[in-house]
């Protein structure tokens, strides 16, 4: 009897510890900033260069995640990248002249889309396209420009 009790107690403790560990992993190590919304509407934007933006990247306004990138395709006729993203339908009063830029979270973080509100009276809706966009900053180009400018400065 004593033997059985020890086994049961040990097993119970083990199972609780295992589930506790699992709970700890799922709640404490993940950010929980996965964007979930039941109702969304889709908006597109064209970018000259999307850098390393990926599908599922967050779409943020004033730093708050309001949507996520659904897909990125290259348009072979206009020669630019078309980014489709979905936005939570509860945010249905965003001016349709808002501009979208591809930003980087931190120095080496992942890229996301930042929206900056415009001043228009008409709002974004299903199928709207954002007109004002700013491409991702590509570090190599930046360094290249800096080097060229630095070089010409020396000559003067």
């Amino acid at each position: 009897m004593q033997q059985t009790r020890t086994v049961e107690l040990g097993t119970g403790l083990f199972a609780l510890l295992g589930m506790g560990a699992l709970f700890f992993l799922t709640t404490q190590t993940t950010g929980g900033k996965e964007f979930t919304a039941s109702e969304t509407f889709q908006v597109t934007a064209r970018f000259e260069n999307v850098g390393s933006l990926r599908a599922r990247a967050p779409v943020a306004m004033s730093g708050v995640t309001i949507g996520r990138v659904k897909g990125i395709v290259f348009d072979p006729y206009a020669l630019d990248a078309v980014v489709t993203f979905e936005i939570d339908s509860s945010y249905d009063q965003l001016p349709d002249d808002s501009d979208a830029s591809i930003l980087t979270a931190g120095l080496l973080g992942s890229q996301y889309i930042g929206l900056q509100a415009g001043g228009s009276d008409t709002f974004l809706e299903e199928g709207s396209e954002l007109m004002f966009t700013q491409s991702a900053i590509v570090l190599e180009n930046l360094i290249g420009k800096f080097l060229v400018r630095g070089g010409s400065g020396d000559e003067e």
Partner: protein
Amino acid sequence: MTGVLRDVYFTVFEFVRTFGALQLFFLRLLMYSPGILVRRFGLVVGQVYNAGALSLVIIMICGFFVGGVLGLQGFSNLAKFNAEDSVGAVAALALVKELGPVITALLFAGRAGTALASEIGLMRATDQLSAMEMMAVNPIRRIVVPRFLGGVIAMPLLAAVFSAVGLLGAHVVGVSLLGVDVGSFWQQMQQSVELADIQEGIIKSVVFGFAASLLAVWEGYNAIPTAEGVGRATTRTVVITAIVVLIFDFMITAVAL
């Protein structure tokens, strides 16, 4: 020449036959499992204790030090890019996705798999299994299925404990010893670990649990009934489980990416 061909033929033939027999054995275990889980749950609990609770010490100690090493290595390499703060993210991703399930499965094979194989193998060698059959007790149901289920239940829980204790180890080394900021340690981790990563780890540990438990009871049940045979079955359990787990790990990672 024909002799060599015949050898090759029989080796291949024997391999395919063994593989098929293993599949059928697995199906039989699965078929008996629901009944045993419902009617003889006490037997399963005893085996969860044997395979899981008794493996906790080795899992926790190894997990702590693996996490600690990740903290050290991550810190010294990330410091080259002034990114020491990311050590939490590196350790968490490595533990949850790879090292937790894989090392737990290898330790599980060494600690619990060998115990299962030698226990069942010794029962075979001392004719206990035949004696049960004489008494119209199905040894697969009474002996093998509870041990198999015990391993299957214990393995994912052990992997979760391993990862959690590993994070504790990484925290102790990274934050307490090397002075990474607590806030950025956890924040960077939470930014980079997604629920999908943890799902991948859970799927891996469940698959490894099935593989390691199945191979252990299979080797034990089919051990040659001699002292040498039981010893060989125990060795084969560890070797084959290690190979199978690492191959499965590669395949699951390839699918998940």
